[in-house]
């Protein structure tokens, strides 16, 4: 399953370690929320970057105390039709100021890339190789956005206001 | 006429066919005995047991490109082998609307 970062397929330095399995010495790992919360300090003390997979049916509040020390938060789309992770992503980015890697996992398909980017995801475990290849092209699909999110894109309303101002500013 | 979309178990109560809609244009189609689809009910393969139904349905569902929403529908088989739709829903799918659409003068 290819990882896409910065618009292209990238090497994933993180290893998803299943519950119960030993953690590698100092490599970058992603563990489950349950494992993390058992002993967060111990995991965070490890040398090697730490990521947590957070289930989509759980408030992100319990993760908030650790945001600054996590390298990756992986959110889950059990099916692409289950949109809870979009809310979680926006809350992490916009409410809690998380600026580490925010990774989309689960059934991650081409036709949701734009939504995911706008919600704050910046890494994608893409289900299909062909979708991963098409990532850069796909995100160019839309140039107009009606509503503000934390992605910084100027909304249509604001662009109109800007146009108006520059018109009235005159030569 | 309970929507067959709600079929959970495969239960055959009489002669049945597998029917679906053609992906590219939505037309009603019936699964034949030759691993293909036909728009004519008369070409449909008749299944009479749950095992036959399961097999034909599985084969139909596997053709995800060509057909969508395959399910098992009842039919009546008349003397002489003519196949007729087995309920009002299938009658409508096979014959079309039951209403007169002409714009009143």
């Amino acid at each position, binding site marked *: 399953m290819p990882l896409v970062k910065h618009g292209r397929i990238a090497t994933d330095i993180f290893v998803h370690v299943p519950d119960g399995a030993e953690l590698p010495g100092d490599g970058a790992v992603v563990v489950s929320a349950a494992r993390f919360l058992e002993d967060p300090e111990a995991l965070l003390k490890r040398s090697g970057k730490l990521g947590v997979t957070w289930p989509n049916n759980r*408030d992100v509040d319990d993760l908030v105390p650790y945001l600054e020390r996590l390298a990756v938060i992986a959110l889950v789309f059990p099916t*692409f*039709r*289950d*949109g*809870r992770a*979009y*809310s*979680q992503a*926006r809350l992490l980015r916009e*409410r809690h100021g998380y600026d580490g890697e925010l990774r989309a996992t689960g059934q991650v*398909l081409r*036709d949701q890339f734009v*939504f*995911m980017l*706008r*919600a704050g995801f910046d890494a994608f475990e893409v289900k299909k190789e*062909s979708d991963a290849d098409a990532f850069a092209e796909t995100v160019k*699909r*839309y140039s*107009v*956005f*009606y*509503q*503000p*999110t934390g992605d910084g894109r100027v*909304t*249509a*309303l604001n*662009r*109109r*206001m800007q146009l108006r101002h520059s018109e009235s500013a005159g030569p | *006429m*309970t*929507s067959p*979309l709600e079929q959970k178990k495969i239960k055959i109560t009489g002669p049945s066919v597998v029917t679906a*809609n053609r*992906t*590219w*244009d*939505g*037309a*009603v189609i019936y699964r034949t005995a030759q691993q293909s689809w036909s728009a004519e009910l008369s070409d449909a393969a008749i299944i009479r047991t749950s095992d036959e139904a399961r097999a034909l349905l599985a084969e139909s569902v596997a053709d*995800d*490109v060509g057909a*969508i*929403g395959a399910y098992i529908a009842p039919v009546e088989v008349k003397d002489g082998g003519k196949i007729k739709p087995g*309920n*009002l*829903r299938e009658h*409508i*799918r096979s014959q079309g*609307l*039951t*209403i*007169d*659409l002409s*714009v*009143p*003068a």
Partner: protein
Amino acid sequence: MYAYDELDRTLINERVSEFRDQVKRRLSGELTEDEFKMLRLQNGVYLQLHAYMFRVAIPYGTLSSKQLRALAHVARRYDRGYGHFTTRQNIQFNWIKLAELPDALADLAEVGIHAMQTSGNNTRNVTSDQWAGVAPGEIEDPRIWSEILRQYTTLHPEFSFLPRKFKFAITASEHDRAAIKIHDIGLRLLKNADGETGFEVLVGGGLGRTPFIGKTIKPFVHGRDILSYVEAILRVYNQYGRRDNIYKARIKILVHELGIEKFAKEVEEEWQQLRASALTLDDSVIEEIRSRFTYPAYEKLPHMPDELKQAAHDPLFERWRKNSVFPHKVQGYSIVTLSLKPVGGPPGDATADQMDAIANLADRYSFGEIRVGHEQNLALPHVAKRDLPVLWKALDKIGVATPNVNLVTDIIACPGLDYCSLANARSIPIAQELTRRFSNHDTAGLIGRLHINISGCINACGHHHVGHIGILGVEKNGEEFYQITIGGRADENAQMGTLIGPAVPYAEVADVIEDIVEAYLALRDRPEELFVDTVKRLGVEPFRERVYATR
């Protein structure tokens, strides 16, 4: 009418390109149906019994004549020459081919029409009052806010995969023609003590298997806060709405299970964090949207023109005028309802020829504007009274001047088993038979306002729960049966109807309705007492007795 600018058009075109690519990948097999289905639903494409059905958005029920002609073109070029107007102010085409849909969408995009989010588990058409902007006594044109909401909810990245569909409706009049109480979010526009615009916000209304009347979650939300407040509601719903059972996934279930106080508290907590955000609408932004709504250059016209005085001698014209013509906020003008319920016809349908003719009449007599009502009729919202006689003749010629608006033959019906794969029973032939039984317009006039709503299944697209008489198709042993309810209302006094007794078979439905109407005529305390008020006064029992005495 809202004028789409380059940004709005660009978005629509980008959407068409995306869908074209998605259809291509579907037909090549790159996308499975499981992956594609939600994508096509989000472009209004259903699979029905015989074919795909294509639901096109008519935002808050407003169309230009150019747009109506484009709909006629789609009906001719890609369908079978007709379309069906729905209970959510949209239009549906029933015979569309998936492979041709991107072209149909491209043709519609040229006139600013799209099908974004007319289905799918996302927010749907923001509906309003078909008399918005012209109704006397309206506080403010609710379409401005419908447009603000339409833009905000279109391709919202956080809310495109909700637990289930989500419907908004807005009213700005005392009499609620938008049925806000049976919507997921209903907004009642009002002014506070300082004359500032805001909304009473209701949540959790809806019909279907578990009907609920919406509950007030906040009595006044300032206009500037409406988007942040709606975002709070949607976010709570997105996170906590049930996803384990599609019959329990609407927000009405969440509101019911939490209780309105707890739900309101959750929303308030979220909203307090969102209040000061970029979603706050400042006045210049609201004005910007308002300025893109153009209103006609009304003439100064007399209250009673000569043309009208003369035409009053024609009893057929008078009957139509008294039935289908409604007061306008500007003197000398009228709102004209075009009945799409001809005797013997399928309710809410219009042919491509009719659409073209109506578009031409709109150009001549209504400043190029048409409205779609949730009762599945059309309206011409800006007709000078002096033009009524000549307009009537033209409307009559194309078959949209049946003088039955709001009467017993002005039936609201879903497509039912003739079209719809969800249906248990047919609805259109029931409606057609009823129009034949009550085809005498004078009799229908004597009966008075009586709304019959027919749904072919419990999904209630015909809004049968809130019909004065509601008819629900069910299946019993492979046969079509119908449950009858009476006393429902969809307006500001919204309530569900009451079942009168066991379901009756297809062949008896029209007889039963005749019995109910006869009972009403015998029981009403005066001619002006509406059917629904007689039911309120006397209850269901006298009607039940009459209907089931011999059954």
